[in-house]
């Protein structure tokens, strides 16, 4: 039962923040970037999980769903780089544009020449994790060094905290996942629960970010 819940967490977890987003309609327009990511992740993860369950009756293209994980990773880096570029303004826009273009060009060439887009690519995932983790760490270090005090509710603080936790834990999972799938698939299967659990936490933090400050009646 718990395994089923965890296996399907990639699908049901994004529904929570998406529901809050529709219900609360946060005023900050840049939060739409996060909502956009969640919607994309929901669609991709739904296809992944459905194709995994109905593997035998699926069309040939969806029998191996690993490429969808790769697409999910690319989407994640695109959406969150946009968030760091437009909402958080971590660096100058041109630097983040350059980073994104370099990332996409590099992996386009990488996949064109390696032709292994149908496997869950550790290099792609760990690069994504490391890049977003570095952005998140820079964001927090800047906040620590600045004089700014967060008296008002800041949704980005929660989103980036969630992203940092998600990427920090997933970095090692993604880095060795391809290796483990070959050498110890049982452990790899168990290990996949870790990203699932962290993804739930990430989605809950995003939900809180969308919801805003709790108003307790006294």
């Amino acid at each position, binding site marked *: 039962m718990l395994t089923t819940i965890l296996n399907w967490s990639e699908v049901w977890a994004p529904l929570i923040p998406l529901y809050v987003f529709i219900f609360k309609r946060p005023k900050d327009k840049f939060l739409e970037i996060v909502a956009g990511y969640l919607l994309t992740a929901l669609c991709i993860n739904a296809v992944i999980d459905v194709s995994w369950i109905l593997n035998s009756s699926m069309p040939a293209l969806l029998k191996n769903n690993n490429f969808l994980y790769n697409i999910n990773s690319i989407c994640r880096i695109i959406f969150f780089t946009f968030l760091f570029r437009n909402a958080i303004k971590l660096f100058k826009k041109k630097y983040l544009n350059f980073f994104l273009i370099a990332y996409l060009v590099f992996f386009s060439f990488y996949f064109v020449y390696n032709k292994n887009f149908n496997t869950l690519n550790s290099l792609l995932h760990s690069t994504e994790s490391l890049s977003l983790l570095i952005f998140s760490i820079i964001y*927090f270090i800047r*906040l620590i060094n600045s004089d700014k005090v967060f*008296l008002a509710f800041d949704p980005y603080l929660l989103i980036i905290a969630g992203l940092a936790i998600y990427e*920090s834990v997933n970095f090692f*999972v993604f880095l060795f996942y391809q290796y483990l799938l070959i050498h110890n698939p049982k452990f790899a299967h168990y290990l996949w629960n870790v990203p699932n659990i962290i993804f739930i936490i990430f989605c809950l933090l995003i939900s809180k970010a969308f919801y805003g400050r709790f108003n307790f009646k006294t």
Partner: protein
Amino acid sequence: MSIELSIIIGIGAMFLLIISLLLAFNLSQRKKFQYNQNLLSLKEQQQNELIKAAVRSEETERHRISEELHDEVGALLSATKLYLSNLHDKYGHEDNEIYKKSLELLDESIHKVRSISHNLHSGILKELGLNEAIQSFTQKISQHGRLEVVTELDEKYSSKNHENDISIYRVLQELCGNIIKHGHAKSIKITSRIKDNILTFTIKHNGKGLTQEEFEKLRYEGKGLGLKNIQNRIILLKGKINFERSEHENTITLNVPVNALL
């Protein structure tokens, strides 16, 4: 060490690293918040000290002017009156009307100078206390048939801090002055009450009143030194002032914590 164990240690280490970073951020926020609070309280303290110094120097200046008016101008006017009487005795009663008018004007001037001097001086406060000073002041501004001023003051109040009493007295003086000058009121009623360590003065009048928003606006626009003085003294008293306007009656409520008066 197996690769599986290395992965688990790696995941744990990364997780701890991020949690430490988040905790460091939280700690830095708390420290910054505490620092800002201290800074704010220091600024407030400095501002209060400045206001206190300004109020004190204003009071000293009032005192000086009051004494000079009383001792110098008052004495000069009394001497002039004496000389005028002597002149009248010496040169007869040919122009009696002019003499009478001059004497009348001189008397009025002496009376005015004494009245201004007493208003500026806070001696009565020291001697008789706040309630007596307010009653004496309201009696002076009362004009039969034109302005009726009624007071109902709580006798339970006993003065504990002379400087704060002066501030309350000056605020009431300024408010009554404004009600007469700008509000053109025909009747004013001042009541005071002590409850739960709060001394509350309520001024009701039938003139043109202000709303709280209008008071704040006038104060921020810097129109009128009087309103600024009122606000400064209220900050010193750690009190609150509230203006209410209604069709028939306007109310000004002044709340002063009694502990602040200690």
